[in-house]
């Protein structure tokens, strides 16, 4: 496919890795924010292609993983009601709530449907006027314009049976929190290319200036990520701290203005609790008061319970880049994609699931899984 295949060229990947190796003279810790980028790095073995001074840690950029446990419980409450059809992106179904998950509610007869686009949720609401249709609107800035459009459209049509349970999160406040922490180790960030496609990268310029940290907006293919890493290393070696854009084929400085306009009409910024991280000020979107008729939190009387995570799950530290999935005693033992303890093992973009899928836990260990030949499976064999 055009704009994908050419960015997976093994020869150029080797060339970029060689250039990075030549450039780097000191240890550096880099973080990619987006779970999609984590997935590419693991899938293609880019972490193993890089020279040893470069350590990659993985950020909190997986909306499925950071949706608060309380919010997952609210979705489960809604899906359990006989008058409600809950519509969701597929990844949310197996995310553990405090006592159940949406998949189990569905198996028990709850009306839970999976869609690819919020537009399909609207179709369900139009087709079933006797049902209350609730769309579970999770996502980062990338997904916000589409979800905003669904609510906008619902209001325009006067759809009385459509509402959204909104759990939108924003990337820059999370980066600010990570950089403000006394335990922060991250010296350079790969900013999420599709979030920046929508938002531009003005906000990242402010962050790089405030914290004197290099930030490069990166794409999602192997060559994109290698080039972004190369640009970060060049900045670190030169003592620069700027916001740069590697993903020029999709991202421009001011972002997508029509999308930002609609988001501004539908959403307002609010404090938001992130699973595994805690409350981050001004880090989420909620619906504006004029959309209250489509806000599931207002339409339904939802209990807001205090809930706890399983104590053995270290996803909090994993999501903040303080620990790697393999540092967790439960990883690949009591916590697997089939039986996840925490959300990062559920979503295909969660760091734990990526490590598990691409066998990062078998290196040097014989007790866990699979012969070596399998290690190559599914990875771009660039070595």
């Amino acid at each position, binding site marked *: 496919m055009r704009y*994908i295949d050419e960015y997976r060229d093994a020869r150029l990947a080797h060339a970029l890795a060689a*250039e990075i190796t030549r450039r780097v003279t000191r240890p550096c810790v880099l973080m990619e924010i987006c779970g999609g980028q984590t997935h590419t790095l693991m899938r293609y073995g880019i972490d193993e292609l890089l020279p040893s001074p470069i350590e990659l840690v993985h950020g909190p950029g997986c909306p*499925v993983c950071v949706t608060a446990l309380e919010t997952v419980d609210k979705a489960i409450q809604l899906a359990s009601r006989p008058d409600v059809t809950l519509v969701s992106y597929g990844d949310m179904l197996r995310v553990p709530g405090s006592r159940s998950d949406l998949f189990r509610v569905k198996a028990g007869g709850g009306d839970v449907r999976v869609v690819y686009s919020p537009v399909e949720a609207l179709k369900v609401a139009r087709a079933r006027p006797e049902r209350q249709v609730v769309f579970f609107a999770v996502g980062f800035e990338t997904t916000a314009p589409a979800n905003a459009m669904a609510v906008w459209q619902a209001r325009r049509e006067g759809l009385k049976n459509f509402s959204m349970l909104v759990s939108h999160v924003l990337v820059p406040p999370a980066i600010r929190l990570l950089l403000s922490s006394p335990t922060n180790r991250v010296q350079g960030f790969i900013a999420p290319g599709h979030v920046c496609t929508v938002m531009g990268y003005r906000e990242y310029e402010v962050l790089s200036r405030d914290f004197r940290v290099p930030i490069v907006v990166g794409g999602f293919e*192997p060559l994109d990520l290698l080039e972004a890493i190369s640009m970060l290393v060049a900045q670190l070696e030169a003592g620069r701290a700027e916001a740069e854009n590697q993903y020029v084929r*999709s991202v421009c400085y001011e972002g*997508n203005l*029509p999308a930002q306009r609609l988001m501004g009409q539908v959403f307002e910024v609010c404090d938001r609790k992130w699973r595994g991280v805690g409350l981050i000020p001004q880090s989420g979107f909620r619906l504006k008061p004029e959309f209250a008729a489509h806000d599931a939190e207002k339409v339904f009387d939802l209990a807001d319970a205090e809930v706890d995570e399983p104590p053995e799950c270290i996803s909090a530290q994993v999501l903040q880049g303080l620990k790697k999935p393999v540092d967790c005693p439960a990883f690949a033992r009591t916590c697997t994609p089939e039986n996840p303890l925490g959300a990062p093992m559920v979503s295909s973009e969660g760091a734990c699931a990526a490590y598990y899928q691409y066998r990062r836990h078998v290196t040097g260990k014989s007790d866990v899984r699979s012969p070596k030949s399998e290690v190559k499976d599914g990875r771009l064999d660039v070595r």
Partner: protein
Amino acid sequence: MCLAVPGKILEVEEREGSRIARVQFGGITRPAYLDFVPEAAVGDFVMVHVGFAISRVNAEEAARTYELLEEMGLLEESEIPSPESDESMSDVRSPKSGAKT
């Protein structure tokens, strides 16, 4: 979740005040709303996320980036061993896997 996939606009129609495109991703086609990329036209590539185009692929910038990469690759060629496996990594991921979220 934030995946967006590049696809080529095959045709555009107006429906209920929205422009909707038929977009080709490798072997499959899917509809995509063009509300956020009013400038996109037939023949353009757009990045599509959950059924909405969020950017028009900047072909000139893409070409320039790739030429730079190519140049560097040629310079490197003499210094590195050639990969034993396939030159292309394109077959490792099915086009479907990217199209969902």
